[in-house]
């Protein structure tokens, strides 16, 4: 099973860490721009397949955030996010955790099609929007991302 998922930047600061179990084992990582994506897993998983899974995770993030970057992970960690330029105006809060939960579940691969993951995530965001629509005041926060 997959023991942990970690994303850290080139300075070694963790941007996302989720543990499913606490035992050491082998790990694979992939390096994208300023981020390292690390998967820790045991001998019952295939190394290259895990590497591919990182790719799926990143591709999904990329679809969600339109060119994902480190700051997306920092602020979208929990934020209700309103992207003015996006066609589906409001994506989701808790996005990264939500996305991860749609891909890896209790240490097992749940879904490998990024299209399917996107569908699930969008559904959740619609729900959220629906329940938030009364209180939500649109606000451009793209400023955060340009910092």
């Amino acid at each position, binding site marked *: *099973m997959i023991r942990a998922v970690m994303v850290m930047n080139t300075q070694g600061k*963790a941007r996302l*860490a*989720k543990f*499913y179990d606490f035992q050491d084992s082998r790990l694979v990582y992939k390096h994208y721009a300023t981020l390292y994506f690390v998967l820790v897993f045991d*001998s*019952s998983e*295939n*190394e*290259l*397949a895990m*590497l*591919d*899974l990182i*790719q*799926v995770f990143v591709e999904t993030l990329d679809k969600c955030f339109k060119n994902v970057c480190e700051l997306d992970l*920092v*602020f979208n*960690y*929990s*934020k*209700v996010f309103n992207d003015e330029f996006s066609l589906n105006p409001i994506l989701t*809060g*808790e996005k990264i*955790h*939500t996305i991860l*939960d749609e891909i890896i*579940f*209790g*240490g*097992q*691969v*749940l*879904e*490998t*099609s*990024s*299209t*399917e993951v996107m569908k*699930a995530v969008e*559904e*959740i965001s619609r*729900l*959220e929007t*629906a*329940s*938030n629509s009364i*209180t*939500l*005041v649109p*606000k451009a*926060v793209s400023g*955060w991302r340009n910092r």
Partner: protein
Amino acid sequence: MALSGMRGLSVFISDIRNCQNKEQERLRVDKELGNVRTRFKNEKGLSPYEKKKYVWKMLYIYMLGYDVDFGHMEAVSLISAPKYPEKQVGYIVTACLLNENHDFLRLAINTVRNDIIGRNETFQCLALTMVGNIGGREFAESLAPDVQKLLISSSCRPLVRKKAALCLLRLFRKNPDVVNVDGWADRMAQLLDERDLGVLTSSMSLLVALVANNHEAYWSSLPKCVKTLERLARNQDIPQEYTYYGIPSPWLQVKTMRALQYFPTIEDPNTRRALFEVLQRILMGTDVVKNVNKNNASHAVLFEALALVMHLDAEKEMMSQCVALLGKFIAVREPNIRYLGLENMSRMLLVTDVQDIIKRHQAQIITSLKDPDISIRRRALDLLYGMCDITNAKDIVEELLQYLSTAEFAMREELSLKAAILAEKFAPDLSWYVDVILQLIDKAGDFVSDDIWFRVVQFVTNNEDLQPYAAAKAREYLDKPAIHETMVKVSAYLLGEFGHLLARRPGCSPKEIFSIIHEKLPTVSSFTVSILLSTYAKILMHTQPPDPELQNQIWAIFNKYESCIDAEIQQRAVEYHAMSRKGAALMDILAEMPKFPERQSALIKKAEDTEVDTAELSAIRLRAQQQTSSALVVTDQRPANGTPSNTQLGLVKIPSMSSNVDHNLPDQDISHENGTLSIVDPQPPSADLLVDLLGPLAIEGPPSSDVQSQPNIVPGFEDAPNAAEATAIVPVGEQANSVQPIGNIAERFHALCLKDSGVLYEDPNIQIGIKAEWRAHQGRLVLFLGNKNTGPLVSVQAIILPPSYLKMELSLVPETIPPRAQVQCPLEVVNLRPSRDVAVLDFSYKFGIDMVNVKLRLPVVLNKFLQPIPVSAEEFFPQWRSLSGPPLKLQVVRGVRPMPLLDMANLLNNLRLMVCSGLDPNPNNLVASTSFYSESTRAMLCLVRIETDPADRTQLRMTVASGDPTLTFELKEFIKEQLVSIPTVSRAPTPAPPVPQPTSPVAALTDPGAMLAGLL
């Protein structure tokens, strides 16, 4: 309102990001935690939305690595919020912050259950995710049936069902005893017919866990797996979104092949054929392409297919095809694939006879030793180590030696150890072996452990043909300007022993050898100095007729070191000096070292101990199994050294010497005749090389008193093996066993009498370990029966024959021990009354055609029921006096193993008799106290006094006192048995008759010693 709240979170995150240092960050976090805490305290005014905001902050702080020990309640309470956003936060934060044992989780179970059985799919998903991430026992108990229902429900969407599958998997993994999977075989088979690949992937994960647990029940799923694999490999009916870089769901392919590997074999010929067709297609259809991601995906599938092929024991043709593929991979640019190629080749070595095909790629593997990536270099090293045999040893070892000079430090130790092992195992001739090791020391002295040079010395000592060559080589290395200290050690030792064989060669006169060795003296450590001193003494001895100039030089050195601060060096200097002045006496004492008994190579043992990597481990095991593969490794099969199973580890011998097979025995005799102390231990090999090599050096010049006492000892030692054998198996009976035990059973028993865990018995098939706990008069032993074979041991029987004084209960011993499995059998013991009789375990099993039956003494002996208690002088004397009535036992014991008082005190302490130092004023006496526990006596104080005679260590006087006559007698006899040398048991039953007491010193009556003496 809401957004301002969430803006608060954003502000907080930016604040943290703007912190210049860790200290600022901590201050900001503390402030925020304080804020959150106050807000939570007056919860009444908190809207769910605010609650959500604070819970998020907490999670963020938690992720930064700070302890968050409050607010769990708030997080859990959000789960029951009616609106989605709050509920979602509740679930996510709960899953992150709480573990399965947290009490608050209980509060949520009902809500979670309602969400799971409710109609809202999104809520179902949230609940399943949380349960799956936490997987606690209570969740499993109350929710597993509902989750199972969701999984097979036809009305649920795939989105929910795949989560249910993995949730169930997690609950099952965590609590296999709670989740009931009886009757799931049919359901699993149905689930595998699923068209939706998402659900299928999750179901396959679930299947892997279920099959790993019990494959018997899931045979019906096997053909379905093959069908799934066919569907994927042929790309039939695979939706576009599940193809990843053109490959139909590589994860599902990998998972399916994993699941198949949990079935021991595939019996149905049709299924097998179908599967091999698919595998063939995968093996042939994969190419290395430009796109990295596509490469990864296709090779993930390919490597899994390789693993499955290996598992299924395919025909040789297919195997060679696999090796050819691997050969291709280890040459590609992509490092991940090179790495996996090498790793899989190592695995391949274990499967079948593909070694020859792998050897074709040797050149490429050697190139990988120079790979920029260290993990690849490591794999290459492992593979080279695994594939080495007699035919390619020379090439590989030479390659390793060459690589040693450039390898980074992290790898050198491993590298040199491996080179040494390979050189030893596959040496085409012994001079080559010596060359290799000396080169090794020369190139990487720092990384050559002592074991390595000890082993060379052993080989050289045991092979006469080799001695002049080794000495000459050692001499050559000494000419080098700067040599490593280990090289000084080994060449000094070799030249001391065998330097005289070179006498006629130029530059090898004793004087020249001496001076070149002596040059190194100022630079070496004290340990090496002591070796050098021995070398000098040996040189002196070999120089016949004596050369006065050399003699004076060496004497001057001895003289100088006679006042050395290091006791070891000082002792050697004094002894060698004194002996070398005696002239002829030196000849006898410093004669050549006798041959070493054969033993398992400590190197290989060490390697076995240190291996962690499974692939590597199996490679070593493989090495250990293919013993007779090389024609030149001849081991001589002396019955004295017992077991056939360690022949492959025996010493390498030159075939021409086979006429000389028995040289070991005469040698031992010679060593006795010429008066060196019994250096050759007659027991089977121990792994402690140090004792062998340094022991003799230290004893070479024993103090004169020891030399005199020798006549007493030597017969004892000669008796030893026989006596030990006789006591090894209690009722010697009909021992027609074809399987010979490993190690000395009697020795193991004696060792276990003094400690509580260890090996009781071992032979090539089984190892019986024992672990004991003692509490007063009760004990609990656990027997560990470990099957060492790849086949089961059957008709296993263990019967305890307890003596009358013990009550023993052995739990059921299973009739069959599966391959490589260990079975534990607890054994309860109650001590009824004191006795020295020993319980016997009658153990038998059958392996193949061998029926083995052994009777083993169990280490349930008197001293196990002793509890050492310290007694002060004020308590001791009144007790001694009160006990000094008739039950007091006094006896003079003769034939005691001569040992220093300190050792005797240690022995008593080991027997759980606490030595009370300072009680007896005579330093030659020992006083000990203990309490004995049995059902009849309860706790009973026992006092022991031993008076030794410094002039004659072979006899002593022992007094035992306790409140119970039987106990006194038994304890006295027991201690006596321990004190007289254990091997000479034959003497013990006829105790020496009491002799008149030596006159005790008369002293003032106030002296406690005198009081003691008076009481006696």
